[in-house]
């Protein structure tokens, strides 16, 4: 009987592991989607506490630069929030010319951004002048 119970639990775990979302572009949040054996009302608080304990937060996955039709450089940042809670932060993008010097502009100010828990986020920044060839970005806590 004990072996049978263990087998059942193993099968449920395996079945959950095989689950694939209908479409990876669609994000169905906790408490909206159906609970599973590993993600439910009992396990979720433990996972959230563990996430907070190890200090999970924002991670940047990629930074894409492209020049638009007007010859202006555009920066697209894609990332995700590993934490369960919403992360609010500020970011500032500075633009560099061909010599690596910072272009003076009124657009390089601290802007607000936020990413909901366990969700992807995107940021966009536009260079002030066509001379921009590269960028550097800084972040800080949204006080």
């Amino acid at each position, binding site marked *: 009987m004990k072996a049978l119970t263990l087998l059942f639990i193993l099968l449920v775990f395996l079945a959950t592991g095989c689950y694939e979302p209908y479409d990876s572009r669609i994000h169905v949040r906790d408490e909206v989607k159906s609970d599973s054996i590993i993600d439910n009302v009992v396990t979720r608080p433990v996972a959230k506490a563990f996430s907070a304990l190890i200090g999970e937060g924002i991670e940047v996955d990629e930074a894409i630069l492209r020049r*638009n*039709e*007007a*010859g*202006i450089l*555009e920066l697209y940042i894609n990332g995700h929030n590993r934490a369960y809670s919403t992360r609010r932060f500020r970011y500032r993008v500075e633009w560099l010319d061909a010599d690596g010097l910072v272009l003076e*502009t*009124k*657009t*390089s*100010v*601290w*802007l*607000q951004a936020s990413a909901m828990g366990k969700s992807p986020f995107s940021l*966009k*920044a*536009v*260079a*002030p*002048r*066509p001379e921009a060839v590269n960028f550097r970005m800084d972040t*800080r806590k949204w*006080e």
Partner: protein
Amino acid sequence: MRARTIQIITLVSILFTGCEEKTTNIDITHDDGKPVLALDYRDFDQAASTLVQSLLASGALKKEGGGRYVVATGRVVNDTMQRIDTDQLMAKIEEEMLNSGQAVMTSAVGSGTDKLIHETRELRDSEEFDQSTIAARGTLIAPELTVSGKIFQRNIRYDKKTQQVEYYFQLKLSDAKSGLRFWQKEIIVGKRGSNKSVAW
């Protein structure tokens, strides 16, 4: 007795010194100061930055065949409860439009008019001035595009102790000849604070 008096004077001096509010310079680049319910320079910086980035990304300033558009600043209405000089917003936007290399601003018409441009033309009949140094008729360039906008405020009671203040920054770019609108953008700056605070 004398020692006691000195002790009291010292104590009072220390207490008064402790009460004094120090004046400090704001670190404009990395300001960690608390947000305020009214609009401050950080809100204008953020609004201007977002508006300019949107305008440049839209390609509305890209002139077909090259060259730069001549842009005039129209009226930017302040419909908030605060005394705002809308130039605080527009000066930043105009500066960035100029620096983008895609537009030149005109001082001949619009809210950014320089009166001297017209006053110097009134000297055409004056014998005191060398007439060859005075701008000839038909030399001013008319604007091809106009920028205008509005800043308005909504105050909402959030709960018994808190109020919500919403500021809307709206800007639009129109073609002066056809009247068609090429670009527009709205930025919302929202704040919540004590009912006791005054948002103006």
